[in-house]
């Protein structure tokens, strides 16, 4: 899952990026409204965390711009303005959720998870395909009774595949949602990661879940 953090206060942006990355999200930062509008159009983000008081283009303007372009990306607003009018204005401009500063990081993470879940219309709790289980809160992954250790990127890749289970995901989709801005799409990094992941979750003995669609991408599917 790839997130755009729009925040003019560098230190806030920096700890948000760090904290979110440690939760296996791919994170990009924009430091003003103009940059945010450009980036949200150029890349396919799964969620935007948006500060309201921004230089150049105000956060509410960014939100209007995003909605005017027909983008349905979930937006979590984070701002020091906490009057009821501000909250109402923010939500009416197209925001999906609202957090006031100073916020508790754990709460921010929970709201991010909730927004992503809602985006995919998924029920809360674990993701499940056949006997493969992924818990987005604890980041625990199991195949049957067997617990599986994954690296951050492998986890993010698996989560993305599981959220799009039974649908073909292209390499471009993977690169856009699992990697951040600095990813070089010309490399075969994705294939390498998919192979690592396959070795861990599809041991020889078990039924295979990750399938390659030649020339297109991959699909996670229970073909039992």
């Amino acid at each position, binding site marked *: 899952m790839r997130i755009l953090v729009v925040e003019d*206060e560098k*230190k*806030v942006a920096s*700890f*948000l990026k*760090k*904290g979110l990355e440690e939760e296996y999200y791919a994170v990009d930062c924009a430091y003003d409204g103009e940059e945010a509008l450009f980036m949200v159009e150029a890349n396919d983000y799964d969620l935007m965390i948006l500060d309201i008081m921004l*230089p150049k283009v105000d956060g509410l303007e960014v939100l209007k711009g995003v909605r005017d372009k027909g983008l349905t990306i979930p937006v979590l607003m984070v701002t020091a303005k906490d009057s009821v009018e501000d909250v109402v204005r923010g939500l009416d401009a197209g925001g999906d959720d609202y957090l006031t500063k*100073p*916020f508790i990081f754990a709460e921010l993470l929970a709201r991010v998870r909730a927004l992503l879940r809602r985006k995919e219309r998924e029920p809360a709790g674990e993701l499940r395909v056949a006997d493969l289980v992924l818990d987005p809160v604890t980041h625990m992954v199991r195949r049957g009774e067997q617990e599986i250790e994954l690296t951050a990127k492998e986890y993010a890749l698996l989560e993305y595949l599981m959220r799009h289970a039974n649908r073909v995901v292209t390499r471009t989709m993977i690169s856009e949602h699992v990697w951040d801005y600095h990813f070089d799409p010309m490399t075969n990094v994705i294939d390498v990661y998919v192979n690592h992941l396959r070795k861990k979750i599809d041991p020889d003995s078990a039924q295979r879940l990750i399938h390659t669609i030649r020339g297109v991408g991959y699909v996670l599917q229970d073909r039992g």
Partner: protein
Amino acid sequence: MILFKTIKFKMTLWYVVILGIILSCFSLFLYFTLADSLYKGVDNKIRTMAEIVVSSARSPFGGGAGIADLDQVMTERFGVRPLGRFIQILDESGRIGDRSTNLRDVQIPISVQTLKAASRGATTFETVQVMGKYSLRVVTMPIQENGKMAGVVQVGSSLEGVEEALQQLLLILLIAVPAALLVASAGGLFLANKVLKPVDAITQIARRIGSGDLSQRIRIKRVNDELGRLAATFNEMIAKLEKSFRQVKRFTADASHELKTPLTILRGEVEVGLKRKRGLKEYQRILGSNLEEIGRMSRIVEGLLTLSRADMGELTMEREELELSAIAREVWEDLQMLAKEKRIQLKFMDNGFTKVEGDPLLLRQLILNITENGLKYTRAGGEVALKVKGDRDQGMVRLFVTDTGVGIPQKDLKRIFDRFFRVDTARSRETGGTGLGLSISQWIAHAHEGRIAVESKVGKGSTFTVTLPMKD
């Protein structure tokens, strides 16, 4: 009842009471003057008639041999028989001699006292009741012959007409005065209502304003009357209140925002930092950053405290004679290190007599604030000049701080001294600014009866000028 306590009611009451007193006085005066004049008229008429009768009684034609036929005398004299006048002639002992025909069986009474007075030659007027019912005004006049009383003439006139007229008048007054008062009170209430209606409107608006809606204004119809002026004054007051409320609200919002940002950083960095085990370097970085934010918060709190004390007039200020150039030189020396670090040339010049009266610590802070500000917004290789100049002719000491920095856009110049106003929010934060320095500087200048002004060109630099009164 609330009604009885309203000005409307009191005004009407006063009005009616005063009008009542005036009308009553007028009525009494009218009644008694008229009564007096009517009675006097009757008296004059009967006296005249009595005189005629007396003279005719004495006349050689009718006199001597008793009294001639009165009716005839009257007819001769007046052409008509006097109606409603009763004439009676008595001899010196009080026996009735002759009487006018209309008296017939009635007789005008005469008292011993009156008779005695007549014998002394005096004329008496009296009112008597005839047949117990009708009032009769009677004049008793002696007929004198050779200095002796020969008889008495009594002329009476009925007071019926007079009394009827007076009764009529009394009736009219008794009906008319209360009626007039009733109409007057209704009219008074109407007028008071009309006059006081704008006051009610003002009260209603004031109540709405009291409940927190300061955008309300009174609609003024007539500008130049008393209530129009009251409403205008009231509106002005509300406008001022609204403005200062808005300022306070914005200031509070700004202050909370300013404090929330470092709090967010502190809380977020610590929370993310504690989520897992990290290396020593990482902990050091987090703690260092936290320390920075704590410093920023303390500076904001300190600045806010200074300003709020200044606002409340609680900041005690020393007043001593001092050389402004000496303080400026100290600041210049203190900031040399910082300037060198940023590779900015910091210059100092002073010229002439720069004695002012004031608080050395506050003035030092003022100079430090604007000089540091200059250093903050000037790039490496630039120059900041600190210049103190005395002007004896104008009695002013001026301090100029000129930088070759980024400059301030024209539209922001007016707001540069506003609390928490920043031309470039991000840059100011990075350089550790609180957004309060220039507000405090302005307050210090004003507290010393001085001014602070700024001129600037984007890309060229800015000049802050502080003007203080010179101490002779």
